[in-house]
């Protein structure tokens, strides 16, 4: 297990290799379907984005509401391929990495390679376990979307596996 401090700058990203297990420390942003759709619209219209994507990681996740006394409820990854149609403009804006579950399209794999990004996976359906790794959570954009709002998360020891590295190697092709 390799401990990684976020954000993931380019140097850190290129050092990662497919199949490695990482523990993440630092800041993540959640975003799923509707947030992606809105971000893409904003980029098209050249409006300012609610968050800077430079070197940041988007976590494909729509958490459950926090029970009293916790920053967040259950918060596992959702299916990444649904974000494929929206991902390239975000990589162009400097997005460093993504966390989700499942395969990406060949186009996205190529784009990850050419932007020196990284795609990480977390265990699908392990939302309660992952909840314990989130120390703080706050909504930073699209509050009206409910569970699909963009949350800023502060994580400690958040476990992921490198699924596509900056050379475009895909874990799902190698098992």
């Amino acid at each position: 297990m390799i401990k990684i401090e976020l954000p993931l700058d380019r140097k850190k990203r290129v050092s990662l290799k497919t199949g490695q297990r990482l523990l993440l420390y630092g800041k993540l942003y959640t975003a799923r379907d509707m947030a992606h759709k809105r971000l893409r619209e904003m980029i098209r219209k050249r409006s300012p984005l609610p968050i800077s994507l430079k070197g940041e990681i988007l976590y494909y996740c729509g958490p459950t509401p926090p029970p009293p006394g916790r920053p967040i409820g259950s918060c596992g990854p959702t299916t990444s391929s649904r974000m494929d149609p929206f991902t390239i403009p975000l990589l162009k804006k400097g997005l460093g990495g993504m966390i989700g579950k499942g395969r990406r399209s060949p186009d996205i794999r190529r784009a990850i390679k050419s932007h020196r990004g990284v795609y990480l996976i977390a265990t699908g359906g392990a939302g309660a376990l992952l909840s314990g790794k989130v120390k703080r959570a706050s909504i930073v954009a699209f509050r009206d979307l409910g569970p699909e709002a963009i949350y800023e998360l502060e994580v400690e020891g958040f476990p992921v596996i490198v699924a596509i590295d900056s050379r475009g190697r895909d874990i799902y092709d190698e098992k």
Partner: protein
Amino acid sequence: MKKINTRKIKQIVSQLCIEANMNLRKDILNALKKALKVERNKRAKRILREIIDNARIAKTERLPICQDTGVAVVYCEIGQDVSIVGSEFEKAVNEGVREGYRKGNLRKSVVSSPIERENTRTNTPAVIHTRIVPGNKLRITVCPKGFGSENKSDIRMFEPTATTKDIKDFVLDVVRNCGAEACPPLVLGIGIGGTFEKAAGLAKLSLLRPIGKRNPKKHIGRLERELLGDINRLNIGPMGLGGKTTALAVNILEFPTHIAGLPVAVCVSCHATRSAKKVL
């Protein structure tokens, strides 16, 4: 006539929504533990341990097992000697779902129109299946269904002359297409026969049968066993990263059908296959 008040129904549905989402079914948990013993792939074992750990954390910390707390599918078997009093039956079920998802801090994932997609913010309406059965009991089962796996479900209307091999190939294709997105290890519910909607209904219903229990019909029990073996040789494994634990169970229900057809529906469910029931 036994009277059951809709207030009681609402209360029970609410409790069952929370219960189903926070307590992984015992049969599923046992199947995961058994899989951990026979699995040889190191990465697969690690993921299975995580999933088992996750269930323990959910239970002790009162968190949902998975953040996709699903659409609430509610099965109601109403004894014909029961009289339901109070408000409207379906309204009571929906109020129960609304209350359970609020009190349990469960995610509200339902949008009002599939086209316009506005979140109803209550996780209602539920999908309600009601059946009238003999007796004076009311049995309610709440089955929260996540959509990572639901999206991978499929149905095919085969020709009546199709063989078991054709059916198996179709099921294996569905599983191959799931990859990691349906959160394997999977539980597969399969409905064979009836009509288009009957097959789909049976597929979902069969998910309620405890893992490890075979269909008592010999030819169906055999098909279940064979399919489970074939699926677990696909090397998809937990999270799609390889291993022999791709499915925990294949549950099949059949129903008579038309001379001209052979519908087969496959309902894909994940390791977080959830349900809770109560008999009134």
